[in-house]
């Protein structure tokens, strides 16, 4: 029995148990570890913009918040507004993936523009990232949480059908917290790795070059990745 199946069983079981919340957390963390959710993108972004621990926390939080909102809106529309008569969930997912891809492309292009601007105006590299970092991070996080996880969607919809909407929403929130913790951890790893490289750059010319090129590489990587996501979603939609 998978964690998702156990979570389903938990919403059917009477009472509100700590076990159910534990399962939701583990399912959320497990879901975030699977490919997607902008993990590599966010890592690239954090490295490219020399992110800090606080930025990693913002990243995890924005994915979780967007995912919870997405599950709630789609779950309510599916249950009460006959959303499935308008569009199949699989198609809706692909549209959301397309939107997420476009958001990522937008962030990549915005990074390029910011990089060229900061060079044109002759700013030093050390201070100009601090305030401009967050919007891109939040957009990346939002694109990572836009597509609902099947398990979380099913928990919410089942809760709505069983008359346990409040409990179901709490489980979806904890599921999001599980996702957030994994993404926060990935962000920390990326920051830790890039800090070590930056320190090393004081002594090695090659590393110094790599550090200088990192923002540009990150912008290019994010744009290309976003273009890839958008293309895959578009192909699936037209297929």
């Amino acid at each position: 029995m998978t964690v998702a199946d156990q979570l389903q069983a938990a919403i059917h079981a009477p009472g509100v148990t700590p076990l159910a919340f534990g399962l939701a957390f583990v399912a959320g963390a497990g879901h975030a570890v699977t490919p997607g959710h902008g993990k590599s993108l966010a890592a690239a972004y954090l490295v490219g913009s020399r992110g800090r621990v606080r930025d990693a926390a913002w990243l995890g939080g924005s994915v979780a918040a967007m995912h919870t909102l997405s599950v709630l809106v789609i779950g309510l529309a599916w249950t009460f507004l006959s959303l499935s008569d308008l569009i199949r969930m699989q198609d809706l997912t692909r549209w959301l993936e397309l939107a997420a891809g476009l958001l990522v492309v937008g962030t990549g292009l915005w990074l390029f523009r910011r990089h060229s601007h900061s060079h044109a105006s002759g700013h030093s590299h050390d201070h100009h990232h601090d305030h401009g970092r967050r919007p891109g991070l939040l957009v990346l996080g939002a694109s990572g949480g836009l597509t609902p996880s099947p398990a979380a969607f099913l928990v919410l919809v089942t809760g709505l059908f069983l008359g346990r909407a409040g409990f179901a929403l709490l489980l979806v929130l904890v599921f999001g917290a599980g996702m957030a913790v994994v993404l926060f951890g990935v962000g920390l790893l990326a920051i830790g790795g890039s800090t070590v490289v930056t320190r090393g750059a004081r002594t090695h010319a090659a590393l110094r070059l790599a550090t200088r090129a990192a923002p540009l590489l990150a912008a290019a990587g994010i744009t290309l990745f976003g273009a890839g996501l958008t293309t895959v979603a578009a192909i699936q939609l037209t297929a």
Partner: protein
Amino acid sequence: MPLRGRLVGLSCALACAAVFALPAPAGAHPFGDPQTVAIAADPARPEVVRVRWKVGGLDDLTVLGVALGLLPQDRVLLDGAVFYEDSDAKAIGPSPAFADYLLKQVTVSSDGQACAGRVTAPDDLAGGGASIDYTCPAAVEVATVAVRTLTDLNPAYHTLATGPGGARAVYTSDAYSHDWTLGAVDAGSGRGAALQLGAVVAGLLVVAAAAVALRRRVAA
């Protein structure tokens, strides 16, 4: 730079690579609609209970077609993956085996007496589902509807059910029978959900406000 620092950096990079390179789980189910049934009265015939069954993910339809012998066995790939094709619904919909399956897995009784079902050949099985009319011996007030579709293939399947007056229930392999009051008027099914969701959101806002207030106090 000390060697230890470099080792830490290297292990960070390796850990990152491990996290990003995890393969997709082969058994992951794609995001799709859950299986549903809608139960309704027939205004013109008080002895009839109408049940509309609709598959969830379309690949479930393919799995069912293979299980009923209507589609070749090799449609289920070696790794268990199944890909739905439009021709599947056309092969399954009009077949007697499918109608028999529905009548066996979805049963209706009223006042302890079984009602005889008749499947209407579906025009659009994938999009609109299949409709079954159950004719009971007398006018129906409360219908006992049992749904066991797909749970014979995998007990993890659930069916989300809607009934008259906005009533809702979930069918599982354990809870496969529910009673439905056909003449029920809408009791405001969305109101309870709105209240519960509103309470959770309000609770969240209180927690967020408290966190902001606490931070301000610490900062001051």
